C-alpha cells in the first residue's frame, strides 16, 4: 500500500470528486502539499472507517511505517508522539459500570484490553459444591452450575490459584454454606444467593474417610485444611465475604424440601469458564463522526432530523427564515444508517468512525470495581509484554 503511483492515482480521483468537476487534471498540475502532511483524502483513509450504506469500507488501518514514504510522511509510531496524543477520559463511572474514552491508540491494543478483561482477569467463583442433602427438584449438577455463576464480592488478588494437587487452605479457597428448608405446610420458598453464608474457618463437613472414633480429641479432618480463620486476616476482618447480589434465585423449594450444601470458591480465569470472568461484558466502539457533505436546509433539514432515531442532528436558524441541519451529537450515533437509507442521501451525509478513538465500556460483575479491573488489565498486558521482551533477549 502507498506506493508512489497508487497514491498519485488516488490524488487525481479525489480532486475530481471533491470539486465535482470531471475535467481531467494532470497529476503534475495538482497543488503542492506542505511537506510532512498527507493530502486530506489519504489522511481520511488513514484515520477513519467509512460506513457506507452497503458496507463499511476502509476498516483496516495502516500499520506499515513506510506506507506514506513516497509522500514524505513517516507513518511509524513514535513513543514521544504517542505519549503526547494518548488520552483517557472517563465519561461515566458507576458502581458496576465504567465508560471512558481512549484516544490515540491502535485498535489492536484496545482489543487486547477488552480480551484481557473478558478472559484473563482472575476472580473467585464457586467451583466445588459438596451436597449433603438435596431433596429439591433441582438436580445437583444444575444447582452446582447455578451456584458457580453467582458473582462473589471479594478481591481475587488476596488469593492464590489452587492447582490440581493443592490442598484447599485459607489462601486459595473460600467456603460458603447454604442450608435452606421449606417447612411442611408452608408456601413455596425461594432460595436466594443471600443464603450463602461465609465460613471463615473452612469446611464444616467431616471427610468421609475419617473415622469419628479414631480422633475424638483432635479436630476432625474436613474437606479443607485452614491454618487460621479467614476473618482474622486484616482484609476480611470487618468486611465479610458474600455474594455481590443478594437477590439471585438459586432454587425454589416446595414444602418439605431441603437443600444443605457447602460451596468452595476458588480463583480462576474467564478463559476456563465464563463464571470467572470479572465482567458481564467489556467492549468498545469507535467514536462516530457524522459529517454533512453539503448544506442541508429547510424541509430537507427537517426530514433529516426526523430520520434519526437517536437525535444526532439538530436544526439551527441561519436567519431569513432559513433553517440548516447541523450535527448536534454525533457521539450517540448507533449507525442505524437511517439517514443514508434513502437513495442519494449518502452524498449528503457521511458516517464515519474515528479509528483511534475508542468509547470503552466495562460492565463489572461486582468482584472488583470497573476502574480497578481496567488497571489490572493494563498490568496483565504489561506483564505479557515484559515476558516477550525477556524471551527475546
Amino acid at each position: 500500500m502507498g506506493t508512489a503511483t497508487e497514491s498519485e492515482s488516488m490524488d487525481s480521483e479525489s480532486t475530481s470528486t471533491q470539486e465535482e468537476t470531471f475535467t481531467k487534471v494532470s497529476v503534475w498540475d495538482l497543488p503542492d502539499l506542505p511537506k510532512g502532511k498527507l493530502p486530506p483524502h489519504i489522511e481520511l483513509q488513514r484515520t477513519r472507517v467509512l460506513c457506507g450504506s452497503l458496507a463499511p469500507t476502509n476498516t483496516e488501518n495502516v500499520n506499515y511505517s513506510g506506507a506514506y514514504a513516497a509522500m514524505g510522511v513517516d507513518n511509524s509510531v513514535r513513543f514521544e508522539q504517542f505519549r503526547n496524543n494518548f488520552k483517557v477520559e472517563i465519561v461515566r463511572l458507576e458502581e458496576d459500570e465504567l465508560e471512558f474514552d481512549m484516544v490515540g491508540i491502535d485498535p489492536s491494543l484496545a482489543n487486547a484490553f477488552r480480551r484481557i478483561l473478558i478472559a484473563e482477569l482472575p476472580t473467585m467463583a464457586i467451583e466445588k459444591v459438596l451436597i449433603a442433602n438435596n431433596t429439591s427438584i433441582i438436580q445437583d449438577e444444575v444447582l452446582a452450575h447455578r451456584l458457580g455463576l453467582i458473582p462473589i464480592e471479594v478481591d481475587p488478588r488476596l488469593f492464590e490459584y489452587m492447582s490440581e494437587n493443592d490442598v484447599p487452605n485459607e489462601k486459595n479457597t473460600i467456603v460458603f454454606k447454604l442450608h435452606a428448608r421449606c417447612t411442611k405446610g408452608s408456601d413455596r420458598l425461594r432460595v436466594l444467593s443471600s443464603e450463602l453464608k461465609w465460613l471463615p474457618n473452612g469446611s464444616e463437613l467431616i471427610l468421609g474417610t475419617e473415622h469419628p472414633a479414631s480422633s475424638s480429641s483432635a479436630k476432625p479432618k474436613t474437606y479443607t485444611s485452614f491454618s487460621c480463620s479467614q476473618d482474622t486476616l486484616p482484609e476480611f476482618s470487618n468486611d465479610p465475604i458474600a455474594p455481590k447480589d443478594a437477590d439471585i434465585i438459586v432454587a425454589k423449594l416446595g414444602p418439605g424440601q431441603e437443600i444443605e450444601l457447602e460451596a468452595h470458591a476458588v480463583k480462576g480465569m474467564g478463559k476456563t469458564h465464563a463464571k470467572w470472568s470479572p465482567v458481564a461484558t467489556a467492549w468498545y466502539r469507535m467514536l462516530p463522526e457524522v459529517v454533512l457533505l453539503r448544506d442541508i436546509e429547510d424541509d430537507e433539514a427537517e426530514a433529516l432530523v426526523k430520520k434519526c432515531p437517536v437525535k444526532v442532528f439538530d436544526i439551527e436558524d441561519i436567519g431569513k427564515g432559513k433553517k440548516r441541519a447541523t450535527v448536534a451529537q454525533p457521539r450517540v450515533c448507533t449507525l442505524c444508517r437511517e439517514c443514508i437509507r434513502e437513495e442519494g442521501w449518502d452524498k449528503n451525509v457521511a458516517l464515519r468512525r474515528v479509528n483511534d478513538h475508542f468509547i470503552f465500556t466495562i460492565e463489572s460483575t461486582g468482584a472488583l470495581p470497573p476502574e480497578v479491573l481496567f488497571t489490572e488489565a493494563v498490568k496483565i498486558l504489561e506483564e505479557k509484554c515484559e515476558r516477550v521482551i525477556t524471551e527475546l533477549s
Partner: protein
Amino acid sequence: MEQCYDLGVEDLEQLSAAELHTPNSYLIILNGLILGKHKSPQRFANGMRKLRRAGRIREFVSIFVNDKQCCVYIASDGGRVCRPLVIAEKGVSRIKEHHMNELRNGVRDFNSFLRDGLIEYLDVNEENNSLIALYEKEATPDTTHIEIEPFTILGVCAGLIPYPHHNQSPRNTYQCAMGKQAMGNIAYNQLNRMDGLLYLLVYPQRPLLTTRTIELVGYDKLGAGQNATVAVMSYSGYDIEDAIVMNKSSLDRGFGRCIVMKKYAAICQKYKNLTSDRLIKPQRQGSEAEKMQILDDDGLASPGEIIRNRDIYINKESPTVTITQVTSPMGLPDSAYKSSRQTYKGTEGEPTVIDRVALHSDENNNLSIKFMIRQTRRPEIGDKFSSRHGQKGVCGIIVQQEDLPFSERGICPDLIMNPHGFPSRMTVGKMIELLGSKAGVSCGRFHYGNAFGEPSGHADTVDAISETLVKHGFSYNGKDFIYSGITGMPLQAYIFMGPIYYQKLKHMVLDKMHARGSGPRVMMTRQPTEGRSRNGGLRVGEMERDCLIAYGASMLIHERLMLSSDPFEAQVCRKCGLLGYYNYKLKIGICSMCKNGENMSTMKLPYACKLLFQELQSMNIVPRLKLTEA
C-alpha cells in the same frame, strides 16, 4: 339411513339392471356399502347437509359427491380428520356481528355455533365439494365456506413455525419432523414419570417470535428450545456444510445444557416353587466393596450417588433351584442362592447420577425396581441443533467469547450460522424471525408470526418490524456494525444479527461416537461384530472395496478383508483339494478324505471362506482347492 330413503334414495333391491345403469343417477354409498341410487345427487347432498346443520344427523358425518365416479359417499365412521369451517351462503358468512357479540358476552360457545348451523365440520372428501375462502372479504358468490382463521389449516408441529408461509414448503415439512426430536420439557409431571429415555433441557425458554398456535398448545409454557443471538456470517471455516459455531461463554452460562435420563429396571422374581429373588446387604469390606460403593443397606443404589462403569446398582440373588419343590421356600440357606446382581455399563465422560429409585409391584405381583439414571450434558462439538425452519446443523467448533465478533452495543453472538444456508434453502421465514425477535427484545413485546397472519394482524409485518428496529437505533434491515474479536477492527460488512429460537435435537455425539481396535467377534464367521452397542468394527463395505480395487491397492484389500477380519490357517490336501485338519499330537495336517497327511499344505484364507466350503459340502457340492506354488 332412513333419512336417506326419505330424501329419495331408491333401494338397490327394487331397481332393475337398466335403472341401475342409467347415466345420470348416482350411487349412494354409506361407509362403503351401497344404499341405493338417486336421480339428483346435488339436491340429495344439500338435503343431507341441511339435516346435518339442523342437528338431525351427527356433525362428523360427511357427504361427498363424486361426479367422476357418479357416487355420493356418506361417511360416518371414525378416523377421518374433520375441520370446522364457517358456513357461507352466497358468499356471505352465516356468522353475523350479533353472534360475535354473544360470543364475547359469554352467551355463546363453540358448540352453540355448531348447533345453530353456523359452523360445520368438513372432512377431506367433503372439502373437495366446497369452495373455501381464507377471509370473509375474499368470499365470492360461489363460496360455500369461510375459514375461521387461516392458521388453523396447520397442525401443532407446523403451527410452531413462525412465518411458515414465507418458507419453501419442504423446509416446513422437515421442521415438522425435526420439532419432535427437540429437547425441552415434556410435561409438568416429567420428573415424576419413569420414562424409558427422557431428554430435557435445563433452561428452556419460550420463543421470542411466537404464533397463536404456540399459545394454544402451551408451547410457551413447556418450551423446547432457547433464543440464541445468531450472527449470520462466516467464521473460521468450521462452519461449512451447515455446521454452527458456538460461543463457549454461552455454553458455560447454560445454553443448550440438557439432562438425559434413562431407566434401568430389575424384577425380584417369584418362582413356581414359592422361592423368590432376594436383595441383600452390600459388602462394605473386601474385594467387592469398591463396586458396591453406591449401594444403600437395602442393596439398592441410593439416589444422588454418582454411578461409574461396572458399578453394581442392585445387589440381588436368585435361588439356584426354581422349578422343583423345596422344603422351606422362605428359609433357604445362603448356599442355595446365586448372585444375579446387575452392573451398570456406562462410558466414562459425563458423570452419571442415580436420579430416583421406584419400587412397585408388576402385573405378576413381583417386586419391580426401577432406577432413573441421569446425565447432565453441555453441548459439545458434533451435537445437533436446529432452528424452527428445518435448518439443522451440528456444532462445528466452540469459540471463546473474546474471539467472537461483537456489536456496537457489546452484544456477542451465542451462535454463528453460515450464510450459505440461506440461498438454496430459501427460508425467508427464518430471516423474518430474526428481525421480529430482534424488534421484540428491543421493544419488550413478543412478536407474532402466524401462518398467513399478515392480513388478519396475527403476524407482524416486516415493515412494522423495521420501524421498531429503527426506533431503537438498529438498522431497518437488521444488519449491525460489527467489530472483529480477534483483530479489534470493524468487519468489512454489516452483519445480520439477532435472536433466533434454536432447538437442541436429541442426537448427540456422546451417544454415537464409536471406534474399535480389537474386540469381540461373531462366533460363526469369526468376523468382528456389527454395531456400536456390541463394540463392533467399522465395515469396509462393497463400495469401499470397489474403490480399493479400482485403485489397485491389493495389499490394503488383503489386510482389511482378511488379516483384520477373520484370518484362518487351513490345512489343504494337494491331492483331493479338500480341507483337512491339524493333528496336534503328530504335529502334521491330515486329510480326512485321503486318510493321511502326505500331501498337506497350510494356507491362510478368511474363516468365512472356510465356512462356505463346509456349508457347500453339507449340501453335496464339493469345492476343491487347486494349489500352485506362489
